[in-house]
């Protein structure tokens, strides 16, 4: 008997994508914001090398995650949410998906523009997206920087919203993305 009811929890696969990508993005902020303040030298080179490898991993996972999501719709939002809250939640989630692609792609392009090709953990080298171009590099770097602040902003909003759902609304919006838990109708 196939179950036609919409799911009440995120699947294990969706949870894995969410938490692995979240951990990688935290890593990216630490690597990127540490490296950018270092003087030119080997430590900067090393941190950005890791940052690029992790960033390409995020891009690959983002592609897989989006494909998975098309086939597996997420659980519905709680009926108690107002239309404004729904629009806000939806906009935040769409912004996340856009940034999951925009961050690595602008990073990859700026590496190409500066003629520092992107390796994946030393195993292979990704092709350059554009040719060496200092003006393009400066524009892409500024874009990558601004996008990182936007990403940081919506990540804070996302965490606060999850906590609000859990502690204020007392619904299962947070719990249903949490592995090793069971959702119960809490409201």
């Amino acid at each position, binding site marked *: 008997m196939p179950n036609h009811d919409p799911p009440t929890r995120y699947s294990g696969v969706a949870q894995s994508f969410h938490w692995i990508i979240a951990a990688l993005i935290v890593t990216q902020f630490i690597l990127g914001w540490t490296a950018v303040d270092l003087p*030119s*030298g*080997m*430590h900067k*080179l*090393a941190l*950005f*090398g890791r940052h*690029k490898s992790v960033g390409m991993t995020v891009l690959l996972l983002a592609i897989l995650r989006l494909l998975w999501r098309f086939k597996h719709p997420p659980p519905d939002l709680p009926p108690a949410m107002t239309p404004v809250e729904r629009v806000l939640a939806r906009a935040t989630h769409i912004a996340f998906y856009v940034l999951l692609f925009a961050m690595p792609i602008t990073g990859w392009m700026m590496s190409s523009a*500066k*003629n*520092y*090709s*992107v*390796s*994946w*953990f*030393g*195993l292979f*080298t990704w092709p350059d997206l554009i040719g*060496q171009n200092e003006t393009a590099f400066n524009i892409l770097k500024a874009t990558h920087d601004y996008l990182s602040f936007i990403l940081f902003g919506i990540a804070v909003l996302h965490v606060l919203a999850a906590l609000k759902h859990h502690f204020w609304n007392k619904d299962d919006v947070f719990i249903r993305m949490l592995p090793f838990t069971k959702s119960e109708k809490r409201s």
Partner: protein
Amino acid sequence: MMRRGALAVALFAAAAVAGAAGPASYTADPAASRLEFTGVQEGAEFKGTFRKFTAAVDFAPEALASARFDVQIDLNSLDTMDKDRDQTIRGPDLFDIAHYPTAHYVTRSFTKTATGYSAVGALTLHGVTKDVPIDFQFVAAAGKSKIEGTAKLKRLEFGVGQGDWKSTAEVKDEVKVAFSLVLKPAP
């Protein structure tokens, strides 16, 4: 008088024979010739070019015993398509061009190989002189003969990499060299 005339003829003949068997002398056409190196940083290759170098070439396939390459490289003329990287390589921990502005390569012996020729020569770089073998092909053409070849060397054998740069974790020890010399008759 007869004896002196005979001696002159004999000397002339000897000179003519030596001339035929000896190598032709060339210099590399600076506009058409290239001297490149390829390093690996963070698992990704990067290319650099020396914009200024001179090469004196004595070479003829039938006179390998008296062949000779003498190459002077202006290290300050390096160009890796990124000013920050160029400055780092010029700096005290790598080329240290304030103390060692030029590199010098001079061959000692040549041999014929299955695919072309190889030579062993002494490279003086960063105040260190060490043997570096090269493999090359000689393409004879009237007024536009060409020598194209490659070499491999280890930067740390020449002390190119002090302080942090002694580590090969971020920048590999091995550096590939490629050259293409368009020859014109020496003046």
